[in-house]
């Protein structure tokens, strides 16, 4: 099934998206955030909490921030402290946690020694990430990559040990990807909770210990089912780059990571999100973590047919931001969704058209397709039918990451049998219609072709407008998801700062160099 798109228009769309993001990148390059600095602390080996339960990465960054030194970058202060006190970063952070001293009060040490220390800590961090990455790449090769679309299911009991039980059951039933949904509103916490957790609402806290527990469980079951099992979590919100760092350390395979989601749907400050997403994506690109972008959300709040072009526009913007972070297209899980009102005549044709447009526009990416949620009701039998059509569109249009629809969507978090029924439905449809898509030739100038072309044209006009006013002003206008956010508002704005002349961050610079994006 081939969509004939106007090649010049596709090129034009990409060029516009690049120009739009080039402008934003200029702002990004001048700035850092508290979360970016905490990320550096974590990758330098700082972990754990102080006696009041505050995570040590927060403790050291706050210490330097209060002392007025953050513009120089946390890397310098940690290295300077390590040289002066002859401690490793963890020992240093623990001492700061006990309030023995403040990092900014330590006299400046020999510059050469401090630089050397920074480079040494950066090199060690890079090596750690590379080790995890290489181990995963090797496992994937040995165990074998499952057929696409990958079957993606969510567990969300609130208790990581209970999640493990459900995840293992889901893998036995055929799941290829396990996503542990986060506890509600974790995205608004300006720190990452510590340790294994057994209480959460609507999900389980994303902590490094929880990542480790689930990773071990999946690695244990993978050889038994004879295929690699991917683990997913969420890097949106105020700790975007930090979550990427702990995901890189614990060998996660995917992260929900969108360049604008936090701004629109969590009312996080624009600048904070743009700066954070850059570091976050560098880490993902370097760690071979597939990002999942969040365009499905737009058409949950605005009309999926009338506003289909906003999905396309955002996909192109997300792609350009990912390219700027040195990401290989195969790690770009470009998001979209099956959300059209089931009462719309030919709704199925619209869905095929939109899904095929995503597939065609991003031939080297791994599109992430999301199930119906908006028009799911308590009628689980109808919901099961809606999910069947969703599965059919996915296999017909060759999607890569397929989040399963649950028949109890909009009622409660999935019961064990809901997940089982969803997996059997998907397996049935994927097998039964395996080569359906490649058997079909689309009617020239037919409904599906025309609709896709129209959405692309509208996306180009929108991108022209966005280029003219700038992405930030476009967000203020409510371009995406019909939600308007102002540049100066939103959570976490006080955590953004302009880097000083003497700012140093050798870790991020080294990653940029290795990814070939050093500016």
């Amino acid at each position: 099934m081939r969509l004939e798109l106007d090649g010049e228009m596709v090129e034009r769309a990409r060029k516009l998206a690049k120009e739009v993001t080039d402008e934003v990148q200029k702002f990004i390059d001048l700035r850092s955030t508290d979360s970016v600095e905490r990320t550096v602390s974590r990758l330098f080996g700082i972990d754990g909490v102080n006696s009041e339960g505050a995570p040590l990465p927060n403790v050291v960054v706050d210490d330097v921030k209060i002392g007025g030194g953050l513009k120089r970058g946390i890397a310098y202060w940690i290295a300077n402290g390590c040289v002066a006190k002859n401690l490793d970063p963890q020992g240093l952070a623990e001492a700061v946690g006990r309030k023995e001293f403040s990092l900014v009060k330590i006299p400046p040490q020999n510059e050469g020694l401090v630089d050397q220390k920074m480079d040494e800590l950066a090199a060690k961090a890079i090596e750690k990430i590379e080790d995890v990455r290489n181990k995963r790449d090797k496992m994937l090769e040995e165990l074998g990559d499952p057929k696409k679309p990958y079957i993606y299911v969510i567990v969300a009991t609130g208790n990581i040990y209970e999640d493990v039980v459900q995840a293992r059951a889901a893998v036995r039933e055929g799941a290829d990807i396990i996503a542990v949904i986060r506890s509600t509103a974790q995205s608004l916490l300006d720190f990452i909770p510590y340790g294994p957790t057994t209480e959460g609402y609507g999900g389980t806290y994303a902590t490094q210990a929880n990542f480790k527990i689930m990773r071990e469980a999946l690695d244990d079951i993978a050889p038994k089912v004879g295929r690699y099992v991917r683990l997913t979590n969420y890097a949106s919100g105020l700790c975007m780059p930090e979550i990427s760092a702990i995901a890189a350390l614990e060998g996660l395979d995917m992260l929900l990571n969108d360049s604008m989601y936090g701004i629109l749907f969590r009312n996080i400050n624009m600048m904070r999100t743009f700066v954070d997403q850059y570091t976050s994506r560098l880490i993902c690109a370097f760690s071979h973590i597939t990002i999942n972008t969040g365009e499905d959300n737009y058409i949950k709040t605005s009309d999926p047919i009338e506003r289909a072009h906003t999905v396309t526009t955002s996909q192109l913007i997300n792609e350009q931001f990912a390219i700027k972070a040195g990401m290989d297209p195969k790690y770009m899980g470009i998001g979209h969704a099956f959300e059209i009102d089931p009462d719309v005549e030919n709704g199925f044709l619209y869905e095929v058209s939109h899904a095929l447009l995503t597939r065609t526009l991003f031939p080297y990416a791994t599109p992430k397709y999301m199930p119906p949620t908006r028009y799911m009701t308590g009628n689980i039998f109808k919901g099961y039918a809606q999910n069947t059509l969703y599965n059919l569109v996915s296999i017909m249009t060759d999607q890569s990451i397929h989040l399963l629809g649950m028949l109890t969507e909009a009622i409660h978090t999935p019961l064990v049998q809901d997940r089982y029924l969803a997996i059997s439905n998907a397996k049935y449809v994927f097998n039964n219609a395996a080569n359906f898509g490649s058997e079909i030739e689309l009617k020239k100038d037919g409904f599906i072709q025309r609709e896709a072309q129209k959405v692309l044209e509208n996306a180009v006009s929108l991108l022209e407008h966005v280029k003219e006013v700038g992405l930030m002003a476009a967000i203020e206008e409510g371009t995406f998801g019909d939600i308007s956010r102002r540049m100066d508002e939103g959570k976490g704005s006080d955590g953004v700062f302009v880097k000083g002349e003497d700012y140093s961050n050798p870790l991020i610079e080294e990653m940029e160099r290795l990814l070939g994006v050093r500016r």
Partner: protein
Amino acid sequence: MINNLDLEHLRPYGDQLNDGVIQLSFTLPVPAGAKAREAAKRLIESMNFSDVQIVHSEDIGEDFTFFVVYAKTTRDVNYKEIKTLEVEVPKMGMEEINEKVFKYLKRQIVIVGATIGSDAHTVGLDSILNMKGYHGDSGLERYRAFKVYNLGSQVPPIELVKKAREYNADVILVSQVVTQRDIHIKQLTELADILDAEKLRDRVLLVVGGPRITHELAVELGYDAGFGSGTMPSEVASYIVEKMVKIS
């Protein structure tokens, strides 16, 4: 209603009057097999069912077994003696509502809406408030008679109350969609308590909606009205106008 119906002894209708057939599905955390099937059968029999048929049982991994069961209930219910609390409003059209508001109140009604606490789902709230509405029934934003502030999702109850005061709200509309371990009850109670403490409760019409909400539950929690799944924006609009006009 069909003939020969004994309303004092109402039973489910499968394919014959009073056959009492009910379908069930559930999972037992034991390995599939004859023993699991027998356990399922005994469990259902212990729940006042007869003629239990395990029509499907399947190993769904990690020692879980899924069952689909048909059985006949041995119980019935007296339909005649049931009294329920439902929001009773005459349904009005958009123009009728607009006219009524301007005739009797001579101003717009201010409505503040949000999903509170941990709930991130705005589907229900948006379908009632957004212009577009639901299934061709326009949302409250489309009515000239209403000034709507949609605060979106995960608004802390205290913040909602603050905004209600700031906008001088006549109506507070909260939606609760997805919840776990009855957290929605806690959050709804918290909102009602704050309104009481702030002495605002008597000055606003407090309305809640969501798939697990009934009018009865809403009243029990100290709300004026509760609307369940499938409620149309025009029903909520009619209710608000009816009440507001009565109050004034």
